């Protein structure tokens, strides 16, 4: 473990490092670049990716724009909140989908849906404001409860908060509308644009995802971000240095809450509905799968994980039958599970780790980087 962290540290790109095991000591090379070093960091590849993302909806079909593109960005944003907490704060929270779900439910309750006896029909911007505030507040509360625990206990307390919320949604009819949830959650028509249409929705999701991504990248270089990573690696030393470890952790839950809440609002608009199925145990674990699949070493990880996850979910049923014949059509979960197992087994750092491993071995750039 130490050896691995050490070798990555030696590459000098501290953002590429990240480990979930809190007993690794702070190494001096980590302090490296502490400030956003301006436009020099923007390279040709960044411009290319941005251009490709902007052009994407004009070359892809509406289906690919909306269901693959839009959904990946939203799932990626929610998973980014987990990557931030787990990869940089050392706290694996399974309640991130719950926070997103709370925002989704708020949107349904405060703006309009088919459940007219509950939905208040307030304007969408007020709904969004309330949804994000309430979800962030509850995320802070979940954080306040769970920062007392460590490791697997954090996973468990957040899982039980999540499952409790799921059963609450199933059983409460007066506010949460029970098993049927809210259908026909309206997507705003603002500035002359229907934001549910594939291309506007894609850009909306892209805007939120990019904002979240750059915000996290920026935040990790601020004193707060560095201190948070310090508390992950050695909470006792950080405490001795005068940092309030608990406060840093709770604050990071609030920040993760904002990301997940925005993702939740977008998710409600994407699905056009919110039901307990949105926040059931499977959905909670899916977010962890997305984050681990992509890799938690860099904020881009969850987005890559989300793309792969959404493609597997959408085309797994076709893929299974094409790979193994028609009998496998009903066994596509087996295929998805196997792919997932292979990635976990052979690449502890997800697809990002896999990729950088390959590059480290074969790529020319990796060699020059190391030198």
């Amino acid at each position, binding site marked *: *473990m130490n050896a691995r962290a050490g070798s990555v540290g030696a590459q000098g790109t501290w953002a590429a490092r990240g480990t*979930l*095991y809190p007993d690794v000591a702070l190494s001096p090379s980590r302090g490296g670049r502490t400030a956003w070093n301006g436009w020099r960091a923007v390279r040709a590849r960044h411009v290319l990716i941005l251009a490709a993302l902007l052009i994407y909806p004009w070359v892809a079909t509406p289906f690919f724009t909306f269901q693959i593109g839009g959904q990946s960005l939203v799932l990626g944003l929610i998973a980014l909140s987990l990557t931030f907490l*787990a990869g940089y704060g050392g706290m*694996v929270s399974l309640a991130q989908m719950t926070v997103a779900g709370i925002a989704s439910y708020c949107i349904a309750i405060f703006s309009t849906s088919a459940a007219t006896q509950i939905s208040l029909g307030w304007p969408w911007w007020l709904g969004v404001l309330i949804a994000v505030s309430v979800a962030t507040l509850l995320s802070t509360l979940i954080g306040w*409860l*769970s920062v*007392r*625990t*460590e*490791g*697997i*206990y954090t*996973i*468990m*307390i957040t*899982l*039980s*908060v999540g*499952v*409790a919320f799921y*059963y*609450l949604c199933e*059983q409460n009819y007066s506010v949460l509308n029970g098993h049927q949830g809210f259908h026909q959650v309206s997507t705003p028509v603002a500035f002359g644009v229907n934001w549910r249409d594939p291309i506007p929705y894609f850009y909306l999701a892209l805007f939120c995802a990019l904002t979240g991504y750059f915000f996290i990248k920026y935040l990790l270089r601020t004193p707060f971000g560095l201190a948070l990573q310090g508390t992950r690696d050695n909470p006792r030393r950080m405490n001795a240095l005068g940092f309030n470890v*608990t406060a840093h952790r709770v604050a990071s839950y609030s920040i993760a809450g904002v990301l997940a809440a925005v993702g939740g609002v977008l998710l409600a608009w994407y699905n056009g509905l919110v039901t307990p199925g949105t926040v059931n*145990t499977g959905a909670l*674990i899916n977010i*962890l*799968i997305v984050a*681990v699949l992509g890799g938690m070493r860099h904020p881009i990880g969850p987005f890559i994980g989300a793309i792969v996850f959404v493609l597997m979910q959408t085309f797994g049923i076709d893929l299974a039958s094409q790979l193994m014949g028609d009998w496998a059509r*009903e*066994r596509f*979960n*087996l295929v*998805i*599970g*196997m792919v*997932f*197992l292979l990635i*976990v*087994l052979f690449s*502890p750092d997800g697809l990002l780790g896999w990729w950088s491993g390959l590059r480290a071995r074969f790529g020319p750039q990796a060699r020059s980087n190391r030198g």
Partner: protein
Amino acid sequence: MQSMTRTWRYALTLAIVIPLIAFAIWALDDNPKLFLRTLLNGITLAALYFVVASGFTLVFGLMRNVNLAHGSLYLAGAYVGWIVGDATGSWLMAVAAGFLVAALMGLLLQVLVFRFMPGQDLRQTMFTIGLSIVLADVMLWKFGGEIYQFDPPSIIYGKTPMLFLNTYPTYRLVMLATAIVIGCVLWWFLNRTRVGMMIRAGVDDRAMLAASGVNVQMVFAITFAIGAGLAGFGGVVGGTALSISPGEDTRYLLASLMVVIVGGMGSIVGAALGSLLVGLVEQIGLAYAPTYSIVFTFVIMVLVLAFRPQGILGRRT
């Protein structure tokens, strides 16, 4: 947060205990039969949870191994047990088969996989999540969505006359006895045998155990086999009291997790306490406030963890 003052702790205990006593008095006055029956239901359900969760706590406690495929072992043991029981016509053979198959699966898991990822919490978690997805689909494929139920010998099936309650299902009482026996055997095994002492030493300090010349891998493998075997055993026992169908794996995984987390990991007594709490809350909730009965169990867990992050009997590590 750990150094909660004594006064506070008393106040908190009183704040929880007084309403509970008040509720018990009200319920006894309102309908004593219902209350006693519900209590007994909770205790016997706790027995089932204990059988499944004791294996989980052994593995969890010693290896810090978060085996989220524990529920899949439960289901696999039950299915194979059913086949054997159906072929031999013997319920006891089914129980034995359930234990052995799950134990073998656990052994293989430890020897082939977990040995190579020590200390990697998240990776183990993810691996076992993936494994449980795969196993669930394989079992759905092979056993379909049908409902399986074991047929116990008629001597332990039916009803038993009881004081106050007229009759009570015999099998649930047998389940309670089984859990008590398993608890005692585990206690004896852990406290009175050589392997058990090694396991306990491992729970306290793995590095020290390895340094003192014990073959740690062997201890791990034995523990994992016993822990997994108990899941399979529980599968047959639970499949007799209730039934077996796809989805039961997640249910018992969640139940085991709650029991172990509430009780404190690695502690058999903790698992017993945890299952009592979970079983009682579930059944009392179902009898007196059914709408939110399942929510209660999870709220209990959140509360316990918020005030005792290491579980009721867990030790800080």
